[in-house]
């Protein structure tokens, strides 16, 4: 497209190249029978978890969540899972799909062949079926003080804190976390050492540390720079691979390690140094 927009738009009666495919076939898309193998567990009645199979007639373009919703509505009302937005922003519907942590609203059936195995998110206790207890994550989120601790308080009447687009870009990526906990399910270190604060919470600490308006890094370091904090991370990078919001927690944790090291050098090697 040229930079100066045309006065009147080109007619689209004959859709442009590429659009034809996107408009699809009038009269509906193709159907496919999908086999789901879903972990079931009800602490009221079950001594251990089991798998249950469902055969579901699906539209080719559906996501795994659509298939689960069809099971729930038409086949088995007793199946339990969380979901809400169906657009990968509320973070409710994380689960293991063929062993990988995924948002089920963002796991497209077209990418799967054969039986699809669905389990609750790894590394969290199961409440029931695909529903896990996020208490540990919620607790860790709070511990990193994920809120602005202003460098200088000023009243609302004095207007906004100035922040240039470049300053915004320093932390914006790290503010995109939807708290879906996929990174905790993917993190081998969290699996081994449950006291590890973990990728999402540490990234959120980093997000505020990097904010030009914030002066709270020292307070957050009390949690973030400990052996439960960034130093527990072994930089496997699984967190960034599974992140549906492209937050890249691994890079946040690397940056935090670097700044923590600089703190240490300043404190211990420079005479009179204060981090």
């Amino acid at each position: 497209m040229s930079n100066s927009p045309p006065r009147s738009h080109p007619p689209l009666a004959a859709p442009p190249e590429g659009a034809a495919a996107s408009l699809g076939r009038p009269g509906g898309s193709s159907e496919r029978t999908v086999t789901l193998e879903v972990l079931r567990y009800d602490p009221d009645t079950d001594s251990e978890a089991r798998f249950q199979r469902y055969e579901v007639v699906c539209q080719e373009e559906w996501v795994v969540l659509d298939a689960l919703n069809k099971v729930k509505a038409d086949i088995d009302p007793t199946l339990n899972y969380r979901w809400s937005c169906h657009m990968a922003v509320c973070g409710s519907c994380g689960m293991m799909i063929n062993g990988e942590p995924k948002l089920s609203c963002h796991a497209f059936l077209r990418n799967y062949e054969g039986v699809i195995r669905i389990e609750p998110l790894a590394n969290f206790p199961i409440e029931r079926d695909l529903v896990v207890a996020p208490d540990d994550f919620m607790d860790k989120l709070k511990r990193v003080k994920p809120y602005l601790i202003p460098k200088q308080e000023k009243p609302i009447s004095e207007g906004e804190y100035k922040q240039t687009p470049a300053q915004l870009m320093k932390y914006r990526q790290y503010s995109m976390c939807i708290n879906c906990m996929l990174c905790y399910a993917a993190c081998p270190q969290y699996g081994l050492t449950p006291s590890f604060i973990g990728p999402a919470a540490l990234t959120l600490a980093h997000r505020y540390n990097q904010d030009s308006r914030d002066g709270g890094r020292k307070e957050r370091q009390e949690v973030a720079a400990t052996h439960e904090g960034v130093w527990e991370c072994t930089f496997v990078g699984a967190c960034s691979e599974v992140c549906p919001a492209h937050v890249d927690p691994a890079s946040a944790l690397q940056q935090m390690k670097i700044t923590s090291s600089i703190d240490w050098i300043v404190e211990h090697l420079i005479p009179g140094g204060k981090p």
Partner: protein
Amino acid sequence: METITTDIAIVGAGGAGLRAAIALAETNPALRIALISKVYPMRSHTCAAEGGAAGVIKPDDSFDMHFDDTVGGGDWLSDQDCVEYFIHEAPKELLQLEHWGCPWNREADGSVSVRPFGGMKKKRTWFAADKSGFHILHTLFQTSLKFPSITRYDEYYALDLLVDDGRCQGLTAMEMRSGELRQFHAKSVIIAGGGAGRMFPFSTNGAIKTGDGMAMAYRAGAPLKDMEFVQYHPTGLPNTGSLLTEACRGEGGILVNKNGRRYLQDYGMGPETPVGKPQLKTMELGPRDRVSQAYWHELQKGNTVTTQWGECVLLDMRHLGEKMINERLPLVRELAEAYLGVDIVREAVPIRPVVHYMMGGISTNTAAATPLPGLFAAGECACVSLNGANRLGSNSLVELLVFGRRAALSAIEHLQDLPPANTVALNARAGETQARIDELFSRSDGTESMSGLRKEMMDTMEKNVGIYRTEAGLKEGVDKIHELRQRYRRVILTDKSSVFNTDLFQVLELGSMLDCAEAVTVGALARKESRGAHQRLDFVERDDTNYLRHTMVYHQGMDSPRIDYLDVVITKSPPGVRDYSGDHK
């Protein structure tokens, strides 16, 4: 049943509930605050709002202009004292969010950026890319973690308000993890439970938007106001209903029919403006009701594009270029690519109108108080009469903040000089909830499936209470919803487990939606005029003589509800003509 005694209980932990909780904690740190929600706060549907939040901040803008845009956009059904309060509070609330760390987009000089939005005469919509609601919600949630006096009850499903001595004194709720009922004794209750868009089959709303807060207040005797006004957002993805923000058009995207014609010019929103140079308050920046109605007319004329997902028009953003799209509309690009396989940089995306927002809700005054003493409401579940007959995009995110805070202040005022609670009476009320749940679990004569009833409700709403309505269709809708409410008493609960029983919650949510649907249908049938989002093919004109007033619907058990009316508050803007011609008239 365990009793939790608190000072103020809030139902709903989205934008309005969190803002209320923070205001309570800041105003009086000694107050005990119970924040109750059926989901973890970050899951609340505020997260799905994309475009932004309106507040006068730039030197070329004025409060009067925001007032006029809102009142005209609402087709003069807004209470003007409410609008006046709102526009003055809006910038303060948005600045407050900035001080709490919200990552608003910025100008080169470090000041906040604003973007154009539908029906607004000036650029005044603050935004954080196209994830504004997400950032507002997370900023509020994270800020709320600072306050030890806010006790959260995450994944508690609220059931009934406890009303005694003519005032609201708490509620019952079920801990979803254990299935155990709890009663919360509170001196004030704030409902911030969101809208009810899931009554309709095709909606931008998340699964949780089932009108539980509205229905709970309605059943307790508080009236629902103006429920017939249901907003269709003009641009939803045709398969999933996912929202493509109005900012698509604010940034310069255009709507074309199958002939490539920018058809909005044929429906009072022209003349055509240059492509890629959006002009405020005309063409693609018309208000949502008018733009959605234009789609309906194009459909009647056979001007829509047939796709595998049904009839659509095209939203074309190709001329914006990849750089601008990535910077300002990254989520839109992702959504269209993922769910439809369309890259908006290279192709026009098929879209159609989709149910988005309830203008109506629990009737409140400008102080966010309902007619039931001790009960307050804010956000989409409330009808404070800011939005009138049609909400302007980017007013509702600010509404959450302004009236969430206002509800908190009113709830505190209510604490003064209250007589002590009669706990025996409250326990008896709570026992009624217990009996209701017990009956559901032990019901042996169930014949109706939850999903079957839900489908019939959704189909009825879509068929009879859509963008354009008729007497015959609305009568059919009223009768059908009445019938479904009767049949609902025989709904089957299949799952009898006490642990995270989503079959149970879906049954309860269906009950909430049927109550809301009743108020929508009877309100729509009774309003024999066309105004804003309520369009009647048999009464095509606005009728200020008979209907410049709010519909008030009162619950009457299993009988048909009672309808009353309340005059609109007009302070300075008498009903006039809505002009979206771009100053050409």
